[in-house]
Structures are given as structure tokens and as C-alpha cells.
């Protein structure tokens, strides 16, 4: 029973990540009609916002101590982070909370990246065939990836969660479910965060004219033009929001998955599967599919399940995708006529 409960938590946590990534992808997909293979790269850039911020905070003052030598024969360098020598307590506090604080940096940075991408490149591809969109965004993804690799290397770079939420929460005690039922604080934070961002995006689309553009654009982009709204501007903002959501997903995921330059590609295929299983042109569909796949993936990895179906954990996501797409022609909540050509 405990095991099932924990797997449900795992599934919700995974699902939160999947849903966040898929949300931005389906916004761009459904509203702008662009197949964005660079979406994974946006997720990765978000994570590297956190890395960069942390690196900036931990810039060190280097004092060369000529009297001592390292094993490889160079003088010993004594390093102290500037931030601590300048701000003392507050400095170490900031360093400790670098991941959540970098959200504040990631929002404007990702918005800017999104806007530049849309204005500079994507905008010219609205009317082009999907094949061209795939090629150009894939090319862009590779370029972004290689730039990050050039500056940060290929190895994962660890990012610590703030000390206050680094440990595990004793969920068993809260719920009276018995001992040993613990769950990492940070994962609970991540789940809450993803739920909050999803809610915020939905609220934004519900209560602003952007929502109208998005909802109308998902049905028929020509009618949007008739609404007399400056669509160009709205499209840019929609793309920017997609970039921010992907970036935030990346920032907050860093303590769970030490980021590296390739992490975007690792999530790319999965996020496409989530979006399509959810149904083209449906935001709630993408969120639903994210959680569904996350939870099923967790349950399929339980030892009891794997002993009956060996290897099921390897293929569960794809198996579920096949079953859903064959029984529901347009995924869970997809609309007719979107990207069926």
C-alpha cells in the first residue's frame, strides 16, 4: 500500500515535469502551427540559467600562495567566493537559495530568448511546410546545445537544493500511514511549483485577450485575424510564454537532474509523445497526458509489474501512446483537423 502511494507521488512528480514541458510545446504547436524541435533546448537553457546564476554567485577571489604547491607542480590557489567576502551571511544565504532565486532571472531571460527566437526566426516559418520547420528548429537546437557545450562542457553540473528543503519529508507521520514513508522535500516543491505554473498559464489564457487568440488560433488561425487583434504581437508573446514555461521547468529540475548540454534532446521525444497523446491543440490534454504517462511509468517500474512483464518499464510510455492513439483517433482531448494533414 505504501509502495503504491509512493509510486503515485513519483508519478505526480514526473507528470508535473512532463506536463510543464509539454504545455509550452503544445502552445506553440496548437496556436502558431509550428513544430518546434528546439523546445527541448529551451528547457535546457532554463536549467543553464540556474547554472549560470550559481556560477556567477560562486565566482571566487583567487589568491596564489607561492609557498605551497599542488601535486602537479603549480602554485596553490586559495579561493574564496566574492559573494561571501562582500555580503557575508546574506551572500551565503543567496548561494544556498540560488536555484529558486534564479527563477527570477530565468523569467526575463527566457522571455527575451523566446521573443528573439520568434522575431528572428520562427516568425518566418509560419507559412512554411512542417518539414522546413523541423529542419530549422532542429538546427537551432543543435547550435544552442553546442554553444552550451562549448562554455560548460559535456559533464553534468550539480545544483544543490536549498539546505532547508534538501532532506526528506516524513509523509508517513503526517498522514498516519506508518514509518518509513518519506519523500524528498524538493520533489514536493517541484510538484507544487508545476501545479502553480500550470494554473498560472491557464489563468493567463482565461482572463486576457491572449487566451482568446490562443483558443481561436487553435481552431483556425484565419478567424483570429478577423477579431481585429494585432496577432503578430500576441504570437510573439505566446512564444515567449512557452519559452518561459519550458525554462522554469528546467530551472526547478536541476536539483533532481544535474543539467548537461544534452538534456533537452533527452526530453524532446518524450515531450512530443506527451503532446500528441494529449491531443493536438488541447492544453488540458497535454497536462492530462503528462500526468497520466508519468503515473503509468512509475507503476510499470514496480517490481511486481516487472516480474510479470519483463522489460515493460522500457517501453511503457510508447505502449500507452500506441494504445491511446489507436483507440482515440485524436489523442485524449485533441480537436479535429489540427495537424492531421
Amino acid at each position, binding site marked *: 500500500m505504501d509502495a503504491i502511494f509512493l509510486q503515485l507521488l513519483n508519478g505526480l512528480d514526473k507528470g508535473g515535469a512532463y506536463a510543464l514541458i509539454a504545455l509550452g510545446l503544445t502552445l506553440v504547436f496548437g496556436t502558431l502551427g509550428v*513544430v518546434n524541435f528546439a523546445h527541448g533546448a529551451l528547457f535546457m537553457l532554463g536549467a543553464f540559467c540556474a547554472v549560470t546564476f550559481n556560477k556567477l554567485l560562486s565566482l571566487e577571489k583567487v589568491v596564489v600562495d607561492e609557498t605551497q604547491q599542488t601535486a602537479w607542480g603549480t602554485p596553490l590557489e586559495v579561493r574564496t567566493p566574492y559573494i561571501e567576502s562582500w555580503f557575508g551571511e546574506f551572500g551565503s544565504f543567496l548561494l544556498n537559495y540560488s536555484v529558486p532565486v534564479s527563477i527570477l532571472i530565468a523569467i526575463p531571460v527566457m522571455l527575451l530568448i523566446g521573443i528573439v527566437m520568434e522575431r528572428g*526566426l520562427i516568425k*518566418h516559418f509560419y507559412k*512554411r*511546410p*512542417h*518539414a*522546413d520547420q*523541423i*529542419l*530549422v528548429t*532542429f*538546427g*537551432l*537546437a*543543435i*547550435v544552442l*546545445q*553546442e*554553444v552550451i557545450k*562549448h562554455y560548460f562542457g559535456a559533464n553534468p553540473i550539480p545544483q544543490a537544493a536549498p539546505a532547508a528543503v534538501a532532506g526528506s519529508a516524513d509523509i508517513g507521520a503526517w498522514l498516519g500511514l506508518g514509518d518509513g514513508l518519506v519523500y524528498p522535500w524538493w520533489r514536493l516543491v517541484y510538484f507544487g511549483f508545476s501545479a502553480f505554473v500550470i494554473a498560472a498559464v491557464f489563468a493567463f489564457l482565461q482572463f486576457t485577450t491572449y487566451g482568446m487568440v490562443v483558443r481561436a488560433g487553435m481552431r483556425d488561425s484565419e478567424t483570429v485575424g478577423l477579431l481585429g487583434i494585432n496577432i503578430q504581437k500576441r504570437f510573439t508573446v505566446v512564444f515567449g510564454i512557452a519559452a518561459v514555461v519550458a525554462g522554469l521547468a528546467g530551472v526547478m529540475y536541476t536539483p533532481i537532474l544535474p543539467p548537461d548540454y544534452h538534456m533537452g534532446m533527452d526530453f524532446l*521525444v518524450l515531450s*512530443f*509523445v506527451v503532446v*500528441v*497523446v494529449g491531443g*493536438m491543440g488541447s492544453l488540458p490534454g497535454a497536462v492530462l497526458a503528462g500526468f497520466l504517462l508519468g503515473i503509468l511509468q512509475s507503476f510499470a517500474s514496480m517490481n511486481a509489474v516487472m516480474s510479470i512483464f*519483463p*522489460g515493460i518499464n*522500457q*517501453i511503457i510510455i*510508447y*505502449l500507452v*501512446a*500506441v494504445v491511446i*492513439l*489507436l483507440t482515440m*483517433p*485524436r*489523442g485524449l482531448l485533441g480537436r479535429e483537423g489540427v*495537424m*492531421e*494533414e
Partner: protein
Amino acid sequence: MKQMLNREPFALAAFSLVILLMPIWLTPFGANYPDLLQKFAIFAIFAMGFNILFGLTGYLSFGHAAFLGVGSYAAVWSFKLFTMNVLPAIVFGVAFAGIFALAIGYVSLRRSGIYFSILTLAFAQMSYNLAYSVLTPITNGETGLQLTLQDPRIIDNAFSTPGAGLPETNLFGIDMSGYPGFYFCAVVLIICFFITRRIFNSPFGLTLRGVKSNQNRMGYTGINTRPYTLAAFVISGMFAGLAGSLLAVTDPLAGAERMQWTASGEVVLMTILGGVGTLVGPMLGAWLIKYLENIFSSFNENTLEHFFSFLPEGLQAIAVDVSSLFVGEGWHLTLGVLFMLIVIFLPGGLMEGWRRLLRRFSGGGGGKSEPAVAVQPAE
């Protein structure tokens, strides 16, 4: 004049000449060694076959590498179980890929557009994941399926005693490694080109293009599109199987990575890069990507210093520094930049560039004329 160029024998002869002369005209590019020449021929077949599906029907399969992988595994098993002769291996490779494609295509073609793409992707990823792990007894997992001295090889061993080392793949005694391997692949490529050209210029091909253009209209025109698309899917799956078995012929090893989504994505990129729906475009795309992968990745600072040695020292250092970002470990960057440049400036891929060149040289009068081998006659 155009009529003249369109004639089938001419196109075929020109194409054969270009392919068979590759060892010569690729020399200045540093690509004239057997392995890369073989890869050029094999991936041209793969991309050409993929284009029969994607270019003609518009159905974008994101799991075509699965058929490549199945072709390779079937071929290597044929080497292991029966004989080192390449013909049975190719027959098995194509047949198994065809059966696999029939099964996956039958199910996936019940959906269209992105839903179809994701279904094919899902099947291919399942094949890859299983081949890497639980199917290891059949696929030898991560290491890849290889020949061993313990293989039964019943047909070969019935006629001769095995030597001390591993046997080589052969075509009735001719070893299929090195240049003979390339010429064998080249001949297969020429045959594939001939077949593809016939398909492009047949009523069947025209019908497939109709499916791409307006599937809805096809129904009200009395055409059952499903068997047509399925036929295209299976044919292109068999091309992939053929390419896979040729990979095994020139180098008897079959690894699971061949089925990964990145491999499926690669053939999609090759096709788009070269020009979707054109006869030779996908082949050019395949060559460009394979060239970058094999040659650009091999440049290191020594090579660059040598290359820029004509510059004065300071300039040389700068040139080496800048260009080293794009070669060696940075070859992916070149790939990405190239993708973007081509799609931005040459919508329609490399073939579009070729067409523009031609138009410029014929003084703008040529209009829509296409190079001899790429013509899809509109007669």
C-alpha cells in the same frame, strides 16, 4: 532538348557514371576511402526509400530506423546461421524489414499527420529499447550482434572447413569489404535509383502524390488510399531493410543504436535537407550529413594549422581558433548552422539551390527546368 535529357537510359547512364566515379571525383574532398563511399551509397538508398513514403505521400514516419535495424539484424543472422554469401543476407534483410513494415504500417496508417508520426516513433522506440535490453539474446544488446567462431554457418560449413579467423562476407568468393564492397553497394544503389525513378514516373507514383496533395479528394475520386499508402510504407521499409543489410554486408555488425530515434530523425533531416519529393535530393542530403559526420569530425588543431599554414603566424592562430569551433568536437555546430542556413536561404533543400543555379546559367529562361536526373516528367 529537354525531351532528350528526360530519356530513361540517359538519366540512368548519367547517374551510374556519377556513382561509379565517386572514388575519383570525391578525391579532392578527402572522401575517397571505402568506408565512407560505402556509407554514401547505403544512406543514399535509405534516404531515397524514405522519400518514397515522405516525399510522395506526405506521411512523415519518425521510426524508419527500425526497419534499417531489422534489416541489419536479419542479415547478420543469415551470416551466422547459413552462409557468408551476401545475397541470402540481403534477401532476408529486405524480407524481414518488409514484414515488419507491413505490420507497423498497417496499424500506424490508421492515423494521419502528427498522430501517424508519433505512432511510428513509438514502435521504433519500443524496438530500440527492447533490442538494447531484454531482447539481448537475439540482438546482443549494447555490444551489437557480431560474428563469432562458434556460429553454425550450416551452408558454408557443409562445403568447406572454417578457417582460424572470422570469415569475411562475400559475393561468390569476392570479399565485400573495401572497394569491392563499395562497388557492390553502388550497383545496388543504381538499381534502387532505377526502381525509384520508375515509381516516381508511374501512375502509382502519381496516385501517391495525389494522396499528399489532397487525401480527401482521393476518396471522392474512387481511390482507396489506405492500400496505396501501405504499399508506399512497405516499399520504403524494404529500402531501409536493404540499406540495413548492406551495412551488415560491408561490416558484419548490427547495433541497437541503428534503431534509435536519432537515426530515424537523421534520415528525415537528410531528406528535407536534400529536397523532399525530388528524386536525387535525399541522396545529396545523405551525402552532406555523412560527409560532415566523418570528415569534419576528424579535423584537429594539427590539421587546421597545416591547412592555414599559408597565412602569417598571427592570422594563422586566429583562423585556427575560429575554425576549430566548427570541426573536430564542434562538427555538430557546423551541422546545426548548415541546417539553418539551407532552410532559410534554400527553401526546398539542396535541389532548390541546384535549380536556382541552373536558372541563372540558362539566363532565367529555364523557369521550372530541373537537372536531368531529377526530372519528374509532367507528361
